[in-house]
């Protein structure tokens, strides 16, 4: 059921994975404030309760509304406070060493965007400044990501374009080709992505990963019905934890082949992102007059 071979069938845009399903948490409390299927919160909750992780680096509430900050959650309560997607930067990897020091974690969970999963794996293979961290990453959960925004961009989009107070926003969402802002009192504002594009973080435009290919488990809304998430289980570690969580009844699942819009849409969006950003990378090579911008995929020079 959805179990693909090690080499995925649809090309490389979805990365390697062992299993792909549509899923949602079976915990009503989690779903109340979850972005979609509550996968990240539920999987961390299970791992925390089972002692698979000692804590997880998540995007917790910051000083301003909808401004996340990296936060080391060591209790289920703290995890619950971090539910939902905040569409702006939270440098979660900045806590990856601190989590093993001040917080004393031996088994770290970390959630992040595809680039943060890349940073985590680079940190394990080339731990230049991450002493004793590489062997302590117990569960890395990646979230699908087309691009991210600086906080100031989100502020501008919500307050100027959507004319809403950030304090009064219940949820933000990017889906069905629009940027959605839901107010506490039931109002809904949608912005076309044409408006949001220019506010995107520039560094995202060279990113060649949509579905967090290097995570243990990656998840996102795309491909699944409302309230459900698409889940890729990628590594042995991920597979082990995921199957235990399934056995423990943490998730409801549906075969990805049986849901709409399904994997085809994930592939389509992944290819769109990769093609567009590959083009950006190529254009950078001839950006000036016989002068190139740096290409990190070739060398550190």
């Amino acid at each position, binding site marked *: 059921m959805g179990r693909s071979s090690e080499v995925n069938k649809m090309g490389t845009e979805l990365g390697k994975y062992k299993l792909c399903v549509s899923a949602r948490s079976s915990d009503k409390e989690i779903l109340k404030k979850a972005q979609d299927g509550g996968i990240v919160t539920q999987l961390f909750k299970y791992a925390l309760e089972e002692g698979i992780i000692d804590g997880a680096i998540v995007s917790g509430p910051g000083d301003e509304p909808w401004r996340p900050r990296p936060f080391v959650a060591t209790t289920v309560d703290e995890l619950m406070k971090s539910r939902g997607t905040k569409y702006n930067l939270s440098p979660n990897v*900045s806590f990856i060493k601190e989590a093993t020091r001040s917080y004393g974690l031996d088994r770290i969970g970390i959630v992040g965007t595809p680039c943060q999963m890349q940073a985590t794996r*680079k*940190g394990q293979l080339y*731990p230049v*400044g991450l002493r004793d961290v590489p062997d302590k990453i117990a569960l890395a959960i990646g979230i699908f990501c087309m691009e991210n925004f600086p*906080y100031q961009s989100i502020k501008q989009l919500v307050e100027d374009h959507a004319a809403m107070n950030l304090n009064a926003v219940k949820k933000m969402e990017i889906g069905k080709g629009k940027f959605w802002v839901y107010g506490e009192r039931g109002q809904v504002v949608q912005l076309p992505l044409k408006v949001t594009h220019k506010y995107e973080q520039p560094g995202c435009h060279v990113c060649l990963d949509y579905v967090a290919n290097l995570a243990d488990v990656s998840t996102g809304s795309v491909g699944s019905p409302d309230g459900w998430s698409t889940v890729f289980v990628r590594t042995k570690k991920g597979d082990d934890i995921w199957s235990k969580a399934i056995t423990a009844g943490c998730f409801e699942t549906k075969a990805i082949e049986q849901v709409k819009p399904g994997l085809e849409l994930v592939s389509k969006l992944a290819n769109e992102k990769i093609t567009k950003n590959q083009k950006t990378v190529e254009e950078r090579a001839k950006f000036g007059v016989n002068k190139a911008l740096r290409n990190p995929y070739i060398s550190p*020079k």
Partner: protein
Amino acid sequence: MKADVEKKAEVIKKEDKPVADKIKVGHVHMSGCTGCLVSLADNYGGLLTILDRYADLVYGLTLADVRHIPKMDVALVEGSVCIQDKLSVEEIKETREKAAVVVAVGGCACYGNITRFGRGGQTNQPQHESYLPIGDLIKVDVYIPGCAPTPQLIRNVCVMAYLLLKGNKDQQELATKYLTPLMQLADRGTEACGCDLMYHIINQGLCMGCGSCAAACPVRAITHEYGKPNVNREMCIKCGACYAQCPRSFFNFDVMNEFEGIMEAIDGALK
């Protein structure tokens, strides 16, 4: 009973691992704090496995009773070179002659690091005031930046160096791919600073605010402003860890995509 004991003693006497295929490694100590050597030693059991199976330590301060730099496959050099100290200058040149591969281990050997701030005046040899990264005097093949460099990166490089010199074709290919960015760093030059994050990441439109640099910084000089790193330049010791750790300084998909297998292989090699 007695026969058993004798038999056991005999078994212990026999070395069950062939030593002929080991590579010869030396630790050359220039002007550094010995923190890099401590990092190497902090691999604990892993270091013993490395010395048991893959490498003979043919030179090393306090570890190997050898006076002059011998011929070796890999020289791990710690520290920068004080150019007012004749012996240091001779020894770094000799290291280049005697070693097939020279690895600059740690911030001082790669970039000068904290020794960049030397002004001389210290007791005993006050005239010793100019410290250069080894790459300013000899050609360096591989960089392991950081202050201190991590036991795990030193371990990974040791295993890869062994595979490169003694492995089969596939292993050599993997080791080459793995070591390439560290060789490119060596090629790139001898100057590092938190400013590299501005010049070569943020100014180049590459930063995506992951936080790797702040995690890597040994002196906590990096905070994030507007989601991007901000370096306290007074605190920066110029070790090069932040830039090398950044996934947008280098990111080699052919290696990273195989992270699971590579980590298993390294773990397996040290079991």
